[in-house]
Every structure is written in structure tokens, then in C-alpha cells.
């Protein structure tokens, strides 16, 4: 009896595992249904984030800390909104993971700006470059998210 239950349980775990793996490794057409909702939410969130970041302009040195704090808040909010809307697609997951990777890097950069260590701010930004968030957005077919915000001042 116990043996039968154990075999049954293993079977269920195996099925669940296969389902999860298949879902997370798929992308594109297979996720078009859930991706449509995700894309709309993500694009709207990116448009809002781009607008907020563009409005910050290019800061003078004295304003770099404030710029970093605000940008960090915008990206955190973007990550929260996009993460909540993400489906099972690999490209969606990769984009959300890119944002998740960016948040602690931005936090470190803000701390470096707080210490007026501007060389560290620059060096830490290499961590953001490596994410290639624009490419991840393109892969997830997020056109707005792939764009670089342009300062309005």
C-alpha cells in the first residue's frame, strides 16, 4: 500500500516537473495568448517609466544622487508591474529577470552617488550594460521597452 502511494506520488511529481519545464522553456507563439496581456501591460509600464526618466534630464553633478534615487524608484516600479503581468514564456521571464538584476545594481550606484564616488557610479553601470535590457525587450517583442528614454531637457 505504502509502496503504491509512493510510486503514485513520484509519478505526480514527475508530471508536474515535466509540465513546468516545458512551459518555462517555451517562447513566442506558444505564449501568444498570455503574452498579449503581458505585452500590453509591459509596454504601458515602459512608456510611463520612459516618460518619468526622460523628464529627469541630464543631471549636473550635484544632482546625480537625486537622479539615481528617482531612477531606481522608477525601475523598481517597472519591475513590480512587469513581473506581476509576466506569463510563462522564456522571453518574458528573461526580460523580467533583466529588470530584477538591474534593481540591486541601481541600488549600489545610488549608494556610490551618496558617497560622491562618481567613478564607482560609472564602474557599477557596467553591470547594467551587461544586462542588454533592450535586446531582452526585443526578444519579448516589447517595442517600447526596447527604446532608450531621451532626456527632455
Amino acid at each position, binding site marked *: 500500500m505504502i509502496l503504491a502511494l509512493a510510486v503514485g506520488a513520484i509519478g505526480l511529481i514527475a508530471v508536474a516537473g515535466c509540465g513546468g519545464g516545458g512551459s518555462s522553456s517555451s517562447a513566442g507563439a506558444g505564449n501568444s495568448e498570455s503574452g498579449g496581456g503581458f505585452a500590453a501591460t509591459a509596454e504601458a509600464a515602459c512608456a510611463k517609466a520612459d516618460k518619468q526618466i526622460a523628464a529627469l534630464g*541630464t543631471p549636473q*553633478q550635484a544632482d546625480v544622487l537625486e537622479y539615481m534615487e528617482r*531612477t531606481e524608484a522608477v525601475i523598481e516600479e517597472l519591475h513590480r508591474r512587469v513581473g506581476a503581468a509576466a506569463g510563462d514564456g522564456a522571453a518574458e521571464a528573461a526580460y523580467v529577470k533583466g529588470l530584477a538584476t538591474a534593481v540591486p545594481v541601481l541600488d549600489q550606484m545610488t549608494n556610490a552617488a551618496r558617497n*560622491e564616488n562618481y567613478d564607482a*557610479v560609472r*564602474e557599477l553601470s557596467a553591470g547594467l550594460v551587461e544586462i542588454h535590457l533592450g535586446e531582452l525587450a526585443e526578444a519579448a517583442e516589447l517595442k517600447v521597452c526596447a527604446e*532608450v528614454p531621451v532626456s527632455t531637457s
Partner: protein
Amino acid sequence: MRRLKLVLALGGVIALLGSAGVAMATTGATTGYPQPKVVVPASVSTPFENRYVLTAVGSGAGIRSGEMKFEFEEGSSPEFLVGISQFYVYGPTGEIETALFTFYPFTELPGGKGLKATALKVGAAASYGQVTPDGELRMFDPEGDRVKGEMRLHGDGPWPVEFRILDEDESTGGHPPAARQLPEARPTDPGWGADAAEYEGEYELTDGAEDPTEKAGTLGAVIGVAQGLGVNGAVVTGGSMTVSGRPATAEVELQTGQEKRSFTLTGLAWQGDRRTAQVHDEGAGSPPVGRFEGTGGNGVVKGSLVSGHTLYKVEFKLK
């Protein structure tokens, strides 16, 4: 016998603490610095492992006196140098203030002419235990007990410096003598050449780096801002300069990706191939935030544009 051993052991400990105490009091302990990315061969760095007293400095630096020591990081392999210094500087109202700098990491100067290191300040704005880059010290190869060099601090300079190597048993007693003030040898002829027609016009940047914000999506703007910061050389991906007017001024635009920074250069001056100017970041009427120091001629102007704590290496060519 046991009592003798105890006395010897205690004596040893006391001697060790005493020597450590002296070492820390006179030189500071340079421990905990990570291995630099660039290794300087011991044959190059060993001649610089000395204590120094400042004997001469460019008058613009506002430094009265100072001393420093370069020593190999304890237990490092391969060995690397760390410098510690104490300068006495003239404050804004003439009083003497103390300025502490650490020099790290050291790298070789081009052509094997000496060493250079980032000047790390211990400032009021820094968090406990942290230092921030504030300039650069260049030390040319020692000649006897003398070492000449250049120093750049808090976005200004470079100023010439000269140090004397202290003998092993020599001490300033914590009161280094006043250094000779070297007169500023900055160009004084107005403009960037004898004939305005030679240097007036529109210039384009010729040493732009790759755009780090490309493919960065929403993060592109913050990358553009961050990569345009730092005394160790901000990233410039594009730019332009227009020189015009009597007296001549230059409007400079520098880009990192899509982030643009605008500067106005005033007080353009030249002598031989040297080109200098004051840098403003909010128009010619705003207070200067740094200097441009470089060379020029034949339609090319290149050098370092310093704005606050940020240094931009630029090369412009007349269109």
C-alpha cells in the same frame, strides 16, 4: 627557568606591540587593499618604496607642506604599492587645514617613466571606512633623493610637485617644512592661436567611444548619465565644439549615448602648443567648475576637460 621564559615571552609581545604602534603612528597600516588588476613589476615599483617630504608644489594647488609614504601592501603577492599622505593646505580664509589622501592602485606611466596612482580622499562626505577618488598623482623616476611629478586634485590641476626621499632614520617630527611654491606656468596669450581664423569654427569629436547605451532599453538613460562621470575618465561617445567671438569662447557638447552635457569654455589661452580654458556648465556667466588643459594646432584641439569630479578626455578636429 619558567620565570625567565615568561619574561622573554612578555618582552617579545611588548616589543611587537611597540613596533606595530610605531609603524602605525608614523606610516599608517596599509592592509586590506585588494590586489590591483594591473601588476606593476617589483623592479619598477621598488625604487618608489620610500618616505617623502614635499619640497615644491605648483602655487595653484594651495598646498603648504606635506609628507607621504609608499609601502608594499603587507603580505601581498605579487607585491603592490599603497601610498598614504598628509598635506597641509590653505583653507578658503587662509587658515591651514589637513588633507589626507591614499594613493592606490599604482600603474606604470607610459614609456616606463615612473608610476601613477589614483588619489583617494578621506572626506567628510564619505561613509566610515570608505575613500573616494579625487584626482591622480604621477611620480617620475627618482633622481638621487629627488622625485618630480604631477598632481591633480578635486577637479583641478595638474600641478608640478617635487619630493625629497627621507633617510630611513630621518623624520619631520610631524611638522613638514613649507614647500617652495612654484609659479603657475599657464599660457597667457588670449585665444587658441595667433590668428583667430586658425582656430575659430566648428569642431567634431574624433575619439568617441562605442555607445554603451545601445541595446540598453529603459536603462539606457541612467547608463548614459553614469558613464559620463568620474575623475578616472568618463565615457564620451560623441560631441562637438564651436569656437567663436571676441574674446573667443567655446561651446562644447559631449554625449554618452543619448545623454548630452553642455559646457562653455572661457578665458581661452595658448602658448606654443598648449591650450587652456576655464570650464562652465551653466553658461559663460556661471562660476567656473573646472579647467580645460590640452594641446592644439593645425585644426586639432585635444586634452582633458574637467568639470567638478568628472574628467573627459576629448580630441576635436576643425571641420
